[in-house]
């Protein structure tokens, strides 16, 4: 998930206001939490000549590592050592307890800047009017559900995919066949809220597929949250995505991956459940035509995938360009998997775009992939080629321990690196050597 435009403006306005008042002058600066907002805050502070010195985080697994190129430290440990005055920037729905924690550290050497964002300023309401609005929402959600349901057999179950991440859809569909057999479900509809998710689900040849917009998806979920499965034949295919759902925060449990959350939490299986991978059309000549058209070498092409929908990487395009140049010196042709105005090809590489259903074939025809961890990596996890995946420390959306393809049992030959800015040269060298 990325920072919304509203939150971005909140951060910019707050930091500008306090920077102009000199809040950061002569003080260290810390951000509380390796959060979604940390990069935005750092970049904003830089505009006013301020660099962050440390990120404070209560997660012991993160302490001692780096995030955004700076050390991560437990708050208590930091304030035991820290002598200089410090500004602690908070930007989180947990801001109240973060402030309470900082207060207990009993140190006057800190100032706190608490930036309000959507998740922290959401108004909690127990008014009669609020209840009536929620009732209308639930009614609307039920109507949307009913409109879809009436198009299909009466016993159809609607599988709702609350989040528009392709990796989430891929994982859900991987176990759907086993779930249908377990629950003896004959008719069903998979409901998604993004075109990319529809294309991902299509790989698995699901029986029925509906695309709704994000708002309608949320309304249906709210309705189901209120009415339950006794009233609506709905099952969400994700372990989160509605307000009241609790799920294990697996930060402290390295034995739990993204895969396990689907196996255990979503579907109620044990480890013996069989994965149902999408079938590949081996007779397709799409890859051959693509390579001929793009003047790329079969089996000696590296495809780069430097974009991820769920997080912004610290690895800049310069680094990707340098990597591409190094690979070209070794006789590889290099292409960038990119689409649309916002995804530019790495300079000096050939832009390519191919549909998901051809992705495995294309990669096998190419020979190699270097990718930021994203849902695309799940989709191509079965490709028989050199797969090199980059994770980043500090951010939940790219955490190696949780999203490793190898740990998830999707690919045992994949080469995986945890990218850190300070080790960029070393990592680039290892990638080039791994590619051969």
């Amino acid at each position, binding site marked *: 998930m990325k920072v919304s435009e509203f939150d971005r403006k909140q951060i910019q306005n707050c930091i500008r206001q306090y920077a102009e008042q000199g809040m950061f002058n002569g003080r260290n600066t810390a951000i509380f939490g390796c959060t979604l907002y940390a990069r935005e805050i750092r970049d904003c502070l830089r505009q006013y000549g301020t660099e962050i010195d440390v990120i404070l985080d209560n997660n012991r697994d993160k302490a001692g590592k780096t995030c955004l190129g700076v050390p991560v430290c437990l708050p208590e440990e930091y304030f035991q050592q820290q002598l200089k005055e410090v500004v602690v920037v908070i930007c989180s729905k947990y801001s109240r*307890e973060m402030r309470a924690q900082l207060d207990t550290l009993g140190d006057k050497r800190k100032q706190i800047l608490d930036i309000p964002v959507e998740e922290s300023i959401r108004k909690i309401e127990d008014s009669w009017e609020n209840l009536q609005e929620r009732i209308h929402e639930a009614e609307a959600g039920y109507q949307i559900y009913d409109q879809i349901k009436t198009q299909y057999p009466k016993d159809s179950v609607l599988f709702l995919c609350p989040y528009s991440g392709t990796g989430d859809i891929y994982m859900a569909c991987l176990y759907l066949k086993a779930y249908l057999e377990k629950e003896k479900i004959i008719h069903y509809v998979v409901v998604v809220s993004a075109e990319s998710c529809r294309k991902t689900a299509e790989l698995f040849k699901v029986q029925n597929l509906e695309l709704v917009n994000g708002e309608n998806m949320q309304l249906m979920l709210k309705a189901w*949250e*209120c*009415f*339950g499965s006794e009233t609506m034949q709905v099952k969400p295919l994700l372990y989160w995505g509605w307000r*009241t*759902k609790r799920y294990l925060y697996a930060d402290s449990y390295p*034995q*739990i991956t993204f895969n396990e959350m689907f196996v255990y*939490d979503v579907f109620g299986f044990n480890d013996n459940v069989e994965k149902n991978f999408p079938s590949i059309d081996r007779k397709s000549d799409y890859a051959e035509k693509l390579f001929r058209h793009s003047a790329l070498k079969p089996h000696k092409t590296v495809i780069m995938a430097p974009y991820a929908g769920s997080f912004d990487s610290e690895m800049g395009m310069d680094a990707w360009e340098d990597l591409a140049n190094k690979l070209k010196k070794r006789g590889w042709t290099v292409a960038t998997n990119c689409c649309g105005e916002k995804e530019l090809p790495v300079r000096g590489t050939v832009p390519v775009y191919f549909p998901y259903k051809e992705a495995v074939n294309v990669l096998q025809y190419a020979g190699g992939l270097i990718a930021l961890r994203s849902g695309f990596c799940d989709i191509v996890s079965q490709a028989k080629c050199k797969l090199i995946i980059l994770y980043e420390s500090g951010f939940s959306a790219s955490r190696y321990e949780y999203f490793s393809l190898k740990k998830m049992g999707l690919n045992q030959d994949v080469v995986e690196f945890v990218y850190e800015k300070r080790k960029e040269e070393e990592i680039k060298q290892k990638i080039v050597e791994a590619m051969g």
Partner: protein
Amino acid sequence: MENFKEKLDSYFEASRRGRAVWKEIEKKYHVLEEDSLVLFPDNDEKLNYAALRNLGGYLKKKYISRVLLIFSDRNIIYGSKYQVINIKEDMMRDLLRYYRLTQFREKIVVISMKEPFGNDGIIGEKGITLDDYVMNALYV
């Protein structure tokens, strides 16, 4: 469809009653914004005792100074050092229906592994215990 409409309307009525239950509790016990509510709707002894066992950890982790434990009369627990409120089972159902519709206050925890609040699929797998679930799924 008419039956369904009646069913939906009954849920909405329940949520309206649930709001009344909440307002009564709020007034009677002078509940403040920073106080936490922990609801025990299920007759699940192991889960309930795991929740009580870990309650101190939750309060410490979240810097909460006051918590109100709400039980339905199936689960009456006496002798807790925390504020304990016992309400009738149907009032608990209505209160939950209200909560399922709207986040009527910030700090509210429902000790339940039933839909839509959670499930027990992960417990016992890969060494995950009930206490793990309580501390790192419910008390967050």
